[in-house]
């Protein structure tokens, strides 16, 4: 039987008012760290293959460089992460817990942990999803990736290639792109992937939920190639049948009100959280990102510019 390497992770992105990282990673009843061992929207799969985050704090030294933390240990038992998360209060965060197929072939390694950010670049990316039959198409992506960027790919994931592909669509892969350029680069990368998949006859469901950030702006996708089509011999269909989830909460600030974590009112909005699952079991203050959509958010004087659009690639 042919095996498909599926990775179903959980992602989180935040942009807005300075917010303690622990509020997002640990404090809520469905926090990102809790989603590593008890995800609510994935019944048969856990995310035990490591944790990573990038956190941008404008008051820190070299504010364009994010704090970076990655570890293959379980984040729920990681005291260093807990201590750090209590001290950091960034204005932007991208974090990820990694899930891999329960198989001896899966590679659990630091080099495979998201978010990816090549040294010297200003863009970081985390991915929730998987490109089916990636091994068959990987080397056809080389022609679409800047050689200097391709040379920096260290790990074995499809996600790092998607990252290199997004960077390669920017005018300057080492600069800070405008939000629109970053959004266009992300959409272009998906178009290239669609073409390469077609060239290889790959036509089965491959979710690509992305969080891409410069620290000042966020681009997120809720997207899948060929949603609803599965290889006949697929053994873990239940994880793939629903469209991979993505939610957001937008408003003033994320805080405890009436003994519950919620996004407070804010007009114009000043903060947004984008996450694979709502960070609280009460999801009434969260909105589901429409399928086949792209979200963009950017910090501007006085608040946050936020937009949702259909992603037709």
């Amino acid at each position, binding site marked *: 039987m042919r095996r498909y390497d599926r990775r179903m992770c959980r992602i989180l992105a935040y942009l807005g008012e300075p917010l303690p990282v622990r509020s997002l990673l640990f404090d809520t009843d469905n926090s990102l760290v809790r989603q590593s061992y008890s995800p609510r929207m994935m019944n048969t799969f856990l995310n035990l293959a490591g944790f990573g985050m990038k956190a941008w704090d404008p008051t820190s030294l070299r504010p364009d460089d994010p704090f970076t933390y990655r570890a293959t240990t379980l984040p729920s038992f990681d005291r260093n992460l807990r201590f750090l998360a209590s001290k950091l209060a960034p204005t932007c965060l991208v974090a990820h817990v990694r899930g891999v197929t329960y198989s001896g072939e899966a590679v659990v390694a630091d080099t495979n942990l998201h978010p990816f950010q090549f040294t010297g670049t200003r863009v970081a990316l985390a991915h929730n999803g998987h490109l089916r039959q990636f091994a068959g198409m990987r080397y056809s992506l080389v022609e679409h990736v800047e050689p200097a960027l391709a040379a920096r790919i260290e790990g074995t994931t499809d996600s790092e290639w998607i990252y290199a592909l997004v960077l390669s669509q920017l005018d300057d892969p080492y600069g800070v792109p405008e939000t629109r350029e970053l959004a266009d680069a992300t959409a272009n990368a998906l178009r290239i992937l669609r073409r390469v998949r077609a060239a290889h006859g790959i036509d089965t469901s491959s979710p690509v939920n992305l969080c891409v950030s410069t620290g000042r702006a966020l681009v997120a996708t809720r997207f899948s190639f*060929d*949603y*609803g*089509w*599965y290889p*006949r011999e697929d053994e873990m*269909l*239940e994880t793939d*049948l*629903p*469209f991979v989830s993505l939610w957001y*909460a*937008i*408003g*003033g600030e994320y805080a405890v*009100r009436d003994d519950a974590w*919620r*996004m*407070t*009112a*804010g007009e114009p909005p000043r903060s947004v959280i984008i996450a694979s699952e709502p960070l609280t079991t*009460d*999801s*009434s*203050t*969260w*909105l*589901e990102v*429409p*399928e*086949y959509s792209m979200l963009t958010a950017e910090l501007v004087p006085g608040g946050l510019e936020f937009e*949702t659009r*259909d992603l037709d690639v």
Partner: protein
Amino acid sequence: MSDREAADFLATVPLLEGWAEADLAALARVLRRRTVREGEVLWRQGDAAREALFVVDGAVSISLQLPADRTVEIGRAGPGQLLGEIALLDGQGHTMSVHVAETATVLALGRLDFADLLAGRHPAAFVLKRRLAALLTGRLRDQLRYLAGSLGGGPPAPPGRDAASSLADLEPCPPPDSRYVRRMATFHDFDPLALWGFLTSGAYVRCPPGRTLVAEGTPSAAYCLTINGAVEKVLVRGDRRIRVGLAGPGKAFGYESLIDGGPSPLAAVSRERAVLLVIPHDVFDQLYRREDAVGRVFVDAIQRDLLVTVRQTLRPYARLASSV
């Protein structure tokens, strides 16, 4: 209120129309009467459901909690109306909050008694299931009217081709592997033989992306079940197009107008190439009215789909309201 008075009231409830006197009396005996005062919160959105309520008199307000501490009243319910059935049926939290607008009398039907009503194999249980499907279709139409109203603009002009010809053009294909279909959440726990009876009642077709399969405002020609791929359920008003839901594998579309005879409240457009099971209107009617294992599976599948669709329809409303 005596059991007799409760039974007399139940005889006026549209959902129970035509029930035998003895059945109404039996139902009256398990209901608990309560007086609820103006301003009292009966439940909040997201709360676990413990009971459904028949409103005897007075009025209650139904509201949707929105992000950033906002609330919008979606409607009111009065004498003869049922509340809370969605959360009891799908086991998730209440879809909206309910508080008492005018002091009211309600009859409460507990979760287990509600399940008992639907679990029987007697004709009344089949009738009740069909009425609940019609009730849920009505709820869906109400929510879509609200959503369309918030979009502004008029509905799209009827298409030149009708939905029947749009479906008839599609290329026939073989049925899917039964093991694949049984993995779909929609069909979990169903009797496999009865499920197969339903799944072999129509024709399987391939559909290219971008095909309008159901046009809003026109009668639907068939019940369609997505086997592979995805079909968008959309509302269009002026230059605004809102995706209300996505019918991926195991999800259906096009059945609302077959249930209540009204025009289709939504358009259905294939987003991905798709394989569909198409059950024409006349076959739908036969399946829907069958009072055997196949009919039971069919109506239960429709009910599951309606429950998902009703919840999905609230998502864009919340997004729109929060972006105003």
